[in-house]
């Protein structure tokens, strides 16, 4: 990334009039933001407003309905399945994020050194992240299948279990199984991004600390972790958003069953909106996700800002 060889930068032609306009920061900013604004305005702002209207109406499929105010939300307030999905979503997001971060960081540290086949390992570790979720979830479903589970076979033959484990049939285990798959999918993303962060930390810092007699654990907490924090927060932010709104994984794995034990916001919204055609209520469930998510994200953003200022 050399700065020296920049063609035609000094002297040269007289800039065109519109180019001169771009010298004004505001015009330049406006121009640069324009494509984004058009795309997002068209494909998000309008549908989003439409979605809000939907949630405030009693629309069902093929029937625009009337404005009913907050009635759909009042209904949700009394809906036990809704609260189950709220709780599930929080639990799911919290547990997976903690594990993804811890394991991702660990993996990143393991990868952050020289060994043979480094490039191949790094690339192949990304596989769980690359493969279309729907398809990898089918593979997991097959591995969890009570009748064919290779996991049960392994545990049994290693002597850990006496009878099979009913991975997806038991309500709490079903959630755990889904969490496991999500972690499996997310760790590579964390690891590679954190690895990128780790490499920006100059090894001299660590070496200096080592010479001063700091133990590895102290070196990690006092040097690596603070320097890694900004990257970590950004990665976590995106992961939390993705996980909170997760749909495909649960949809394929359990469809929200057994007995609604694994419903998340998105799957429940889908079941109501698409399954029963009550578009307005489905939209209300989707929309109810928004303030929760917004709150989490604001907290994270504020924290990031604090970290950056420091």
């Amino acid at each position, binding site marked *: 990334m050399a700065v020296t060889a920049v063609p035609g930068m000094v002297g040269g032609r007289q800039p065109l009039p519109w180019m001169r306009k771009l010298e004004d920061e505001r015009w330049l900013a406006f121009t640069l933001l324009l494509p984004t604004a058009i795309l997002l305005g068209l494909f998000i702002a309008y549908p989003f407003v439409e979605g809000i209207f939907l949630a405030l109406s009693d629309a*069902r499929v093929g029937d625009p309905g009337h404005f009913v105010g907050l009635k759909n939300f009042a209904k949700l307030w009394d809906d036990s399945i809704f609260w189950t999905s709220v709780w599930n979503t929080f639990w799911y997001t919290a547990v997976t994020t903690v594990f993804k971060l811890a394991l991702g960081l660990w993996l990143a540290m393991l990868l952050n050194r020289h060994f043979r086949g480094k490039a191949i390992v790094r690339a192949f570790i990304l596989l769980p992240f690359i493969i279309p979720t729907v398809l990898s979830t089918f593979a997991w479903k097959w591995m969890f299948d009570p009748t064919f589970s290779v996991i049960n076979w392994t545990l049994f033959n290693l002597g850990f279990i006496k009878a099979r484990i009913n991975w997806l049939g038991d309500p709490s285990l079903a959630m755990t199984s889904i969490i496991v798959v999500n972690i499996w999918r997310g760790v590579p993303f964390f690891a590679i991004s954190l690895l990128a962060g780790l490499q920006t930390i100059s090894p001299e810092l660590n070496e200096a600390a080592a010479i001063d007699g700091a133990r590895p654990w102290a070196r990690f907490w006092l040097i690596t972790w603070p320097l890694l924090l900004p990257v970590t927060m950004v990665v976590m932010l995106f992961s939390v958003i993705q996980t909170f709104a997760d749909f495909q994984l649960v949809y394929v794995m359990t469809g929200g*069953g057994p007995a609604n034990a694994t419903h998340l916001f998105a799957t429940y919204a889908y079941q109501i909106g698409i399954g029963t055609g009550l578009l307005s209520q489905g939209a209300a469930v989707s929309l109810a996700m928004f303030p929760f998510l917004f709150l989490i994200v604001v907290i994270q953003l504020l924290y990031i800002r604090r970290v950056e200022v420091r």
Partner: protein
Amino acid sequence: MLKPKRRSVIKLAGSAAAVASTGMAGILASGRTPAYAQQKTVHWLRWVDFVPASDQLWRKELVPQAEKELGMKINIETVNGNDLQPRTTAAIQSGSGPDLIMAFNNTTYIYANSVVDLTDLAEDLSKREGGIFKYCRSFCSDGKIFMSMPWAVPGAMISYRKSWLEEAGATNGFPKTWQEYRTVGKKLKAAGHPIGQTLGHTFGDAPTFTYPYMWSWGGKEVEQDGKTVAINSKETIESVKFMTDFWKEAHDEGALAWDDTNNNRAFLSGTISATLNGASIYIEASRKPDTYQTEKGKPMKDDIQHSPLPAGPAGQFGMHLMQSTMLMKYSKNQDAAKQFLKWVHTEKNYEKWFLSQKGYSTPCTAKWEEHPLWKQDPVMAPFKVAARLGQAPGFAGLPNQKAAEALSKYIVTDMYAKAVQGMPAEESVKWAESELKKIYSA
């Protein structure tokens, strides 16, 4: 009156953009320009058939033939059965999409506002073919209009291993009552091959078991008025209690969250002795007799038989997946689509498809019960009467929108699933009652 206005604004913006950016429009149009500008195109969305041969038949034979005879272009699209609903919803809301869409069960009532009345076609079919069964009629017609054209019923019957049931004492054919079934099931489980039945969130095998099971004990969701929730009855509680013990004693307890596919695999692998399913297990076993074998090394297909669900104190019931075809209101080719629909329901064309199903699907009219196909294979014979004996969800009311909502929320299924997981019977029934009340009082 806010809505239409906003819509038209977007529409305006849309056409403006389309005009402005001829570049992109050009790209979009390339290869898509109606090569059949003068010709009508009918887009038909169906599920991917359980029987692959039937999809082949459509693509390679019937569709080209129809195109030639009717002088139109026909796009046949197949998707996974689970994905029909999002497609239908999006199509209706955006006012464009397939002209003909396959509907499952009472989803017809969900889309009732957006379909074209097919009474003339349906009644004509009914007259020609000896009457549409009540079961099929109740899904397709709300008493005023035909929301869809009855297509067929892939029946749900218990597939079971003859030899294993005989070993367990069922010497006079399949058990006739739940009590008998439970006694046999206990021995089956003790012998290491229990009954497999899902109580999970899956559109096929779970409700087709739980609804008829409840009815056979005398339980019902609502009274005939279609308003009064009646599920919290002595009969329902009795059925839940029985199910809880029956489950523990005779069922594969891993099956709680099975989807529609798990029991097929479990059965074909020889781990379960009986399961409620379509004929797909038998069809798969006959397709590959060398692959699926019994523990004695004989083809498994020769050891499979089908039976309706056993009877309870209140009688014997069945509920099957009902498929029908909706003609969508937004369609610009309604006449052509009707023409095509009429064409496929012509006896000689429909028969080709019917034969390719080998009994997997039972047609909705009486005439087909006479068809020689049912005599060819005694194993498939029980499916002959599937459509005649079925009862629709929402009983004793209509299988209307509310019943469809209850069905898609898996309330009846979850009632049993909760009890099986340890919730007291009274409580789980009360839970179902409160959920149903929310639906029926709205």
